[in-house]
């Protein structure tokens, strides 16, 4: 990959990759750092890139590997469990323009509800959480997720399904108000 190709990758897929990094780390700052590392790793590993390979899938796989390494290292080095700081993601809210004419109170409520959903996703076991984050945050198809996680496509599909069922059940248990979204 040459630098111009990297720029093209950033233009085409940068948002999805960055979003995946932020959602996976649970932090804008850490996600941005992971994104920068991912892009530079792409540039350095140019000779290993298969021309027929999806650069976006490769980037997500790289970021996942880097994040796992970093999480392990941080947990050990600081003598603590990995930290999560979802408040900054909470402050961002969701996609703008999906809830027209809402009052400030409703916006705050909507943000806190989206935050709740993110927290529920965070609480999923990794085997269910990662496919969900790849599918929604990185906007990857099931086939690509299966390749990255080295799983059969049907396994990815069933994990996605199970993850959604779990979250939906928890939301319903909490009598979640979808009308506010």
């Amino acid at each position, binding site marked *: 990959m040459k630098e111009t190709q990297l720029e093209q990758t950033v233009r085409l897929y940068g*948002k999805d990759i*960055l979003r995946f990094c932020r*959602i996976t780390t649970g932090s804008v700052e850490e996600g941005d750092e992971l994104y920068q*590392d991912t892009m530079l790793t792409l540039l350095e590993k140019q000779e290993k890139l298969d021309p027929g390979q999806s650069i976006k899938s490769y980037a997500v796989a790289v970021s996942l590997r880097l994040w796992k390494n970093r999480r392990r290292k941080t947990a050990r080095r600081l*003598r*603590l469990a990995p930290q999560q700081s979802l408040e900054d993601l909470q402050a961002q809210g969701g996609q703008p323009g*999906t809830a027209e004419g809402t009052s400030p109170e409703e916006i705050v409520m909507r943000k806190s509800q989206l935050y709740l959903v993110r927290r529920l*996703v965070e609480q999923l076991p990794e085997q269910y959480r990662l496919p969900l984050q790849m599918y929604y945050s990185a906007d990857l198809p099931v086939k690509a997720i299966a390749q990255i996680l080295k799983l059969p496509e049907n396994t990815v599909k069933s994990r996605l399904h199970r993850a959604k069922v779990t979250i939906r059940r928890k939301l319903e248990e909490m009598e979640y108000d979808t009308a506010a979204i």
Partner: protein
Amino acid sequence: MTQQQFERILYQALRPEVAADATAIDDRHRRKRKGTCMNIKKFVKKAGMVAAALVLLGATTVCASGGAVVKRLVSRTESYRYSSFQDMDQAMKKAGFQMAVQERLPGGYVFSEAAVRSTEARDADDRRLFCYYKIDVEYRDASGKTLDLIAHERREGIVDTEHAPGQSRMVGAVTASYFVDHYKLVPAGYEWTQEDEKLARQPGYFISEGSGLNAVQESEVALMTWEQDGICYTLMDMGAQETANQLFAIAGKLVLGG
């Protein structure tokens, strides 16, 4: 809730808006990766992030400190990072103290990177008593094994280990102590068993909770501590892969220099 409503919720929650300019490659980051950057990279600037970025240290420290009692230490996740050994002068300048440091250590360990982090000492009511800097120097060998050398100025009320060492030896004019601690990292919401309660009361056994974990992870950490010229040093061997003798040899190299 219909399936369509639910899909919309998931989509909105997991696809927060990302500004296009946030995806640009940061040149400072690039230089740092290439090992030519002499500049400090300061990660977090937003004040709103500070509270979220505070991280509790695993071990609780209880000591007298000018009348107040240091109940726990809170370390900030933000750090100043230095990618080259030549940058250590800057790291020490930032931390406000000089430490004994070597580019190469016995056992094939070579300087990898350094970070300066601030740590707050807090009392039982979570009030800040004082703040101090730590320098964390990471060394790496050819197989990827790492050692961390952590240094800070001696502060009243701060101890780096709370239990008796497994071994102590004179290294030059200082006493170096060797410990092996056991860490159990547990997922958020983990319910402690009776066995956990019992183990947590043992010296050198720590249970720490983190929301990013899905399963319990256990790890041993070997520590070598000493104090020289008012600076407290901790050499940390994750996974306790090196022998006590090897860590004493490394401490000797740092204490005696050369």
